[in-house]
């Protein structure tokens, strides 16, 4: 695996390789997490600087959604005891259920009180279904290694596969299983796909599973799964023998877009297997071309390509017309250092920025009005996320050593984050005592809150920061144990903060009242001998 996706796994683990809230990270990986070149061919990107002496732009797509959050329950896995604690967020009651002997962290279906527990130590998969009274467990035999789960958005199916994990050598490169979630008729169908599946998409109707592999795209028609036996999914390639770079699938499930070499994009039409190629060199003749980021817009009509070397964003339409450079639109951002781009789910805004230390600004692009605004910040940028409705951006900053003692120096050296109102450009900087982690916040516009957990074990920093998005006022909620996850239950008007404590610990924050309620020790119940 190449480029940003590889960096993602080194930094954040495989479960973060899911689409959604786009967050772009820089640095923070350490030596082991240095990014590879996005074409993966010459190894010259990692740790190197470009011709202008700038450090590499590092992009990591991260979705923060705690893996075990259901509609109204949390699923907390105790790997040691082979049990999962089901924590009901409405009344804080807890039940524990037995799963496999060596379970991986349970993965919950978005918006449903249903989770899947994979197991390292046995050939079973446990399906947990929580009803009004209790949680039932259905154990299903599986014949191959699995480490990751992707749920179909309609709730009908899940795909179980062995994804890449840092430090772990896979043994299963082709076998995946589709789990039919129909209650009472649950079954696993084994499917052979291309080499090395890494990511699974679904079309909006839940009819197709689209599996990204190192060979290309394997598609599974979920409506025609065989009643018995195996299936080999048809594979579509990009009509090249070059290694496939980062591959994205648009939300409609119509196209797959992959990067090749220094400047090439290939678009695979998943309906008929046709491939269209676009070459950025067609419009940029002078100088060394440095493409640092590519994202598909939420509506699936365009790819936004960041050419850092030329301070350029190229909007390339998806479809047969992609090959025609005359239809591309180039947005020159002269003097505005950019290297990465992040798009809002709602589609109106995009934010272009760079992770180069010392560049303390972002560029907000209004894609509807075709306008841009430079927003000056107080610190260098490490990562940016946009709220689902596109109204706010969260900027995680770098802490940069200056050796100075001025106020600016101290601000630069501190950890911090900024919240930006994209409508007005107003931003608020918050200096904090620990590095805000890319997987420890929820920017939730339904409740109008940002929940951000801070942790620094060396300095005993354990805190939840609650930011009111209407006023940008910040409340600090001290925690007694290091936070590990943050999530929300919108219908219950509460957030939760999982914490690292023997026996398990979850603190609920009720945003209506500001009260907290902690449940702890629930994992011990699994080991009680009666």
């Amino acid at each position, binding site marked *: 695996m190449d480029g940003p996706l590889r960096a993602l796994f080194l930094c954040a683990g495989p479960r973060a390789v899911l689409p959604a809230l786009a967050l772009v990270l820089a640095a923070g990986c350490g030596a082991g997490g240095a990014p590879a070149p996005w074409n993966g061919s010459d190894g010259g990107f990692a740790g190197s600087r470009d011709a202008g002496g700038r450090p590499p732009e590092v992009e990591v797509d991260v979705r923060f959604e705690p893996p075990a959050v259901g509609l109204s329950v949390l699923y907390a896995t105790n790997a040691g005891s082979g049990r999962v604690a089901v924590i009901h967020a409405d009344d804080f009651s807890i039940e524990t259920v037995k799963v496999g002997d060596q379970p991986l962290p349970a993965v919950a279906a978005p918006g449903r009180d249903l989770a899947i527990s994979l197991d390292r130590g046995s050939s079973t998969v446990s399906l947990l279904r929580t009803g009004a009274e209790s949680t039932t467990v259905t154990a299903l035999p599986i014949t191959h290694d699995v480490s990751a789960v992707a749920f179909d958005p309609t709730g009908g199916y899940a795909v179980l596969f062995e994804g890449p994990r840092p430090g772990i050598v896979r043994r299963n490169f082709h076998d995946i299983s589709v789990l039919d979630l129909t209650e009472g008729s649950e079954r696993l169908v084994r499917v052979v796909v291309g080499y090395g599946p890494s990511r699974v998409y679904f079309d909006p109707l839940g009819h197709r599973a689209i599996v990204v592999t190192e060979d290309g795209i394997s598609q599974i028609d979920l409506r025609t799964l065989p009643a018995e036996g195996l299936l080999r999914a048809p594979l579509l390639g990009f009509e090249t023998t070059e290694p496939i770079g980062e591959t994205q699938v648009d939300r409609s499930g119509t196209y797959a877009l992959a990067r090749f070499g220094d400047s090439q994009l290939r678009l695979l039409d998943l309906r008929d297997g046709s491939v269209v190629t676009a070459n950025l060199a067609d419009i940029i003749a002078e100088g060394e071309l440095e493409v640092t980021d590519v994202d598909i817009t939420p509506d699936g009509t365009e790819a936004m390509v960041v050419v850092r070397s030329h301070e350029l964003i190229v909007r390339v339409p998806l479809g047969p017309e992609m090959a025609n450079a005359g239809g591309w639109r180039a947005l020159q951002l002269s003097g505005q250092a950019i290297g990465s781009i992040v798009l809002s789910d709602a589609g109106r805004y995009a934010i272009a920025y760079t992770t180069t230390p010392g560049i303390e600004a972002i560029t907000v692009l209004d894609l509807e009005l075709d306008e841009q605004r430079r927003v000056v910040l107080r610190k260098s940028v490490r990562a940016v996320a946009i709220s689902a409705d596109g109204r706010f951006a969260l900027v995680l900053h770098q802490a940069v050593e200056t050796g100075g003692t001025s106020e600016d120096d101290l601000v630069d050296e501190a950890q911090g984050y900024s919240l930006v109102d994209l409508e007005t450009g107003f931003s608020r900087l918050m200096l904090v005592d620990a590095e805000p982690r890319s997987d420890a916040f929820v920017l939730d516009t339904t409740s109008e809150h940002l929940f951000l957990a801070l942790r620094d074990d060396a300095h005993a920093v354990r805190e939840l920061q609650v930011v009111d998005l209407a006023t940008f006022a910040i409340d600090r909620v001290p925690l007694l144990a290091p936070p590990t996850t943050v999530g929300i239950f919108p219908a219950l008007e509460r957030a939760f903060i999982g914490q690292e404590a023997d*026996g398990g610990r979850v603190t609920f924050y009720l945003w209506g009242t500001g009260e907290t309620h902690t*449940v702890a*020790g*629930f994992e011990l119940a699994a080991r009680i001998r009666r």
Partner: protein
Amino acid sequence: MKTRALAHVSLLCLCVGIAAGCTRLRVGHLAPLEDAVVAVDDQLGIARIVRVEATTVESEDVALSEGPATVLAHPTDPGAVFVYTLGRIGSADEEPVPSELVAIDRTGEQRRWAFSGQFGSAEISSDGRYVIARSAFGRLVVENRVEIVDTTLPASETNPVALSLRSLGGETPTAAAFSAPLPWSDGGSLRLAALFAAGQLSLFDLDHPEVAPITIPTTTDPTVVGPQPVEGVFVGSELVIRTDNSRQLLVVALGEGGGERRFDVSVRTLAAAGAIGRMWIDERGSSTRVIASTGVALHLFDLETGIETSLATPHGYHEVVFFEGPAPGDPTVRPRLVLHGYAPSLMFVDLGDEPTDVVGSSLLPLTSSPVSVIADPARGRLVLFDSTGQGPGYLDVAESRGRRPSSVIDLFDRSAIALGTSGDIDTTAVTNENGTMWIAGRQGYVARFDLDTQERFEAWLSSDVETLLPLHGESRRVLAFHSVATGSFSILEVTGDETPRLIGAQY
């Protein structure tokens, strides 16, 4: 202030009415009773009760079983003690002798219980009702096994009752906690014993010891032995456990059982920011407050909801005194506490009705760190002591030796009365109801200091004082031992100015 009185008193041998006093004892243990003292010689197997009257003493011997003895003070009945003898394993020529427990007060032996075998140690529950014998020894023993005496009941087939820890990996019982009789859902009452062992605790129904216990590990990690439970307090139907060097308290809630087991449990934890070194239960608020000290912070938990608040504390505090009263600028009589320990200050914490309500806190600096403190919460008073450089001596059960008073703290006014002593004053005791302090120095010097009125009375005994031992009882007598090993003492009366009387060797 009283006039200084000089009283050289000749030795009086008042061996009045001593029936069994002829046998000289080699005393290994000593304990105060109500206007009496009990001295134990486990070589001879005698517990000698020496009753101290206004002008006379008399003694009575209680025969003990064989083996080394331990004296267990009754936590809630200061007039009673238990003498536990370990017994002896048998040989080819001698039958084994089991461990035995004898309840004693000033009137003599009250009850006696024999265990089924030999146990190396015994502890008494915090309410004094139960004595647990553990650490079985012998040529082949079951180390999991303990025996428990209900001291409110006479010996019978079921008293002591034997329990066997469900060992998960070879661990053996190290301590125990007991519940009060709990009104239970089946219409009866439930009495539980919690046995602690490395990494776990086991809960037994004392009325149904044949039912297997519920065993609760203290960690979720099955590959390691969890922290050792070191302290447990039942609060109604919940048991709060402090484990060794852990950031969390474990709360075991009792619930209705099923089948032959009358109870079940659920567990939760209360977390602090650091390792919890001490724990206290405070039931003065609207619901139970659990207080945990990490050495640098005090955490206050609402036991019911788990809500927590904390405040930073200076290093060194390890004790808490609860009291109610006013404070400077706050005339409201409210629950408060004061922290003390190895620190040159006291910290006051003012509490509200809710368990986590902290109204305020303040420090009272001291000129030195007290070596010990005697608290009188009802009077709102602490007596602080400095060290004289030497520790308590042999049989100095009141730990009177090696300390001198440094100040008396008014908890309500948060002010101190500084006390100075000459260099030869090295022994101090406070009477059982905390109203009077006695000090002793060289050449038989003793002085009485009324902590309420600050009146003093001085006297010289004809022999040096080795230790002071306050007796229990309304007379508030103090024994000034000239030789604690032989039982040579003077009786110091707390009332009146009468001359202290010197009593010869009593055991």
